[in-house]
């Protein structure tokens, strides 16, 4: 797997600068160390990588295309927009890249039971899928609010043989589902592997999930060099926990490509109904990591909001916190409404219905494209497809 020269994070204690680490109850330290050991061993193991690549190719449908979005480009009349088509992955989003990697690890660790948290349900579906394929028991924790707005994905998980456990604590969304998954792991640590769905949580997860997702960026680099014979000028991705963004950014961290992450501004940054962690949050300790966090002045975690369940999270991957402070990546945000309109725009112009998460990155093109010059290349990570969001979009958009 990819190791970048000159950028060698996290360090041996799992820190990206001051962020990251292992802020978890003692019970989880030993399984985290076991996971780190086996991962570091397998990361460079030829057989493991061949097996994973084979699954990417034959099961998941990789490499995903890098599509030139001609109509969208013409719409803005400037620059040149490419879409990295993670929506075409098996199960409909980039989440499968990580689920496949981690299920192979779970097999090596001889775990028989898999747990996962899910927000939009895409990670839950990806985990249920790999558990079905590899014959492991699967339990997915999901907030009750998310279960109702992503009911189709709940059914998909059940059809795939997973048990979906509703979470009724707190804001009943992704944050609370993650709490319950961690509590389950503390209790059933002997036979259970926890497949975290984003670049969040204690070390080694942020590093491991990044590595599994960096296949997006590795492919993108090859593809754009083949098509344009040069690197892009901009890469754009939405950021909730931040796994699709890190996946496409990471192989470009040491280049001059401008990297932009888009968070969810919900009903607006001046309201308390958003989940723009890097824009409005401050340093905190949450879900096992030190990272930017949306919290009140007493350090209680905020109940956040986004129209897209996958971005509805008060924390963010610690590497994004580092990259923000380092100014290597710029982070902005767009509102629920802007995202909805962007979903409509892409559907009409390119015949691609994006996930509402992804639609946040698309919406930012309105701000970015006027600033580009004619031959500047913009690559947008189209992290998932919008089938799961049709109910939400239908409610909000009159056609």
């Amino acid at each position, binding site marked *: 797997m990819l190791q970048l020269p000159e950028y060698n994070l996290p360090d041996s204690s799992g820190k990206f600068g001051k962020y990251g*680490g292992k*802020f*978890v*109850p*003692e019970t989880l330290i*030993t399984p985290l160390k076991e996971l780190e050991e086996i991962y570091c061993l397998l990361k460079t193991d030829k057989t493991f990588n061949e097996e994973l690549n084979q699954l990417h190719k034959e099961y998941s449908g990789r490499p995903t295309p890098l599509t030139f979005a001609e109509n969208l480009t013409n719409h803005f009349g400037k620059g040149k927009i490419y879409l990295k088509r993670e929506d075409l992955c098996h199960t409909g989003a980039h989440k499968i890249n990580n689920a496949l990697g981690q299920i192979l690890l779970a097999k090596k660790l001889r775990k028989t039971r898999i747990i996962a948290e899910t927000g939009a349900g895409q990670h839950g579906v990806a985990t249920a899928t790999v558990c079905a394929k590899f014959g492991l028991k699967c339990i997915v924790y999901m907030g009750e609010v998310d279960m109702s707005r992503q009911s189709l994905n709940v059914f998909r998980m059940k059809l795939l043989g997973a048990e979906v456990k509703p979470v009724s604590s707190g804001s009943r969304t992704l944050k609370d589902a993650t*709490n319950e998954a961690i509590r389950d792991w503390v209790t059933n640590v002997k036979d259970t592997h926890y497949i975290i769905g984003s670049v969040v949580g204690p070390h080694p997860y942020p590093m491991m999930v990044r590595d599994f997702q960096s296949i997006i960026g590795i492919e993108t680099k090859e593809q754009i060099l083949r098509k344009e014979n040069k690197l892009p000028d901009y890469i754009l991705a939405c950021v909730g926990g931040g796994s699709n963004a890190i996946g496409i950014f990471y192989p470009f961290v040491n280049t001059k490509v401008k990297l932009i992450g888009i968070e969810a501004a919900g009903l607006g940054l001046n309201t308390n109904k958003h989940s723009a962690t890097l824009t409005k949050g401050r*340093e905190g300790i949450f879900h096992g990591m030190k990272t930017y*966090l949306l919290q009140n002045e007493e*350090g209680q975690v905020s109940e956040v909001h986004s129209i897209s369940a996958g971005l509805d999270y008060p924390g963010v991957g610690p590497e994004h916190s580092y990259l923000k402070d380092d100014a290597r990546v710029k982070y902005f945000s767009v509102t629920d409404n802007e995202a909805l309109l962007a979903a409509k725009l892409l559907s009409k112009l390119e015949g691609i219905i994006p996930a509402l998460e992804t639609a946040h990155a698309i919406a930012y093109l309105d701000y970015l494209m006027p600033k580009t010059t004619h031959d500047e290349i913009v690559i947008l990570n189209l992290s998932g497809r919008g089938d799961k969001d049709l109910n939400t979009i239908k409610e909000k958009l009159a056609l």
Partner: protein
Amino acid sequence: MSGDRIVSIVSNYIKKKNEAGEKVLSVFLTSGFPNKNNFVKLALNILDAGADILEIGFPFSDPLADGPIIQASSQEALKNGINLQITFKYVKEIRKNTNKPIILMGYANPVLSYGIDRFADDIKSSGANGVIIPDVPIDEFDNFFNSSFDGIDKILLITPTTNEERVKEIDGKSSGFVYCVSISGTTGLHNIDKNLELIQRNQKLVTKNKMLVGFGISNEDDIKKYIPYCDGVIVGSAVIKSLMNENKNYIQTLDLVKSLKTATNI
């Protein structure tokens, strides 16, 4: 750490009790729960009923190591506006009327947000003696607890997944006592299969500190099983649950504490 050179009030207290033929009972209360107005009185009554050590939990919105009961009490406390400032006020009042050890327990983020140095200063000035932060394991210990924590006991946990080498390391870093978690799981999870062998192993490995056993201890029978292999026990969820089920005078809860204390006297 210079904390080692200062005699720990907590460990000294446990030692004296043990020498007098008693094991200690540590009782956990959620700050300001169930009633923010008579919490100080409740805490003093709990101490009078036989608790040797008082652990006061300051609430956090996302308590990862806690089961449903303490989660619920934390939520309730937050709803009632309980925070660290109010908690320190409680400690100050309780300290006026007792010499028994008082320990604060809670998660890292409210502490970080309050200011780590300010938190340490207020522990000292309020008269508390120690702190338990379950999401700061030894791996993050040195980064989190700076020199302003000198003189404050930093109590660390060992669990069924902690290997021998690590138990020794934790014993080395911990002060006041070592908190031996009897089960893999969250607080309040009742343990059917008592893992006595593990507790016995830990008792042999923990040599620097006194060792108290906690998590899932809810009645006299539980205590009697563990007490030969430790220096005391910690009860949290069972007390909180009892408080949830009664109002005003908390007579049943005080009776529960009395009976738990009787069980620690072997």
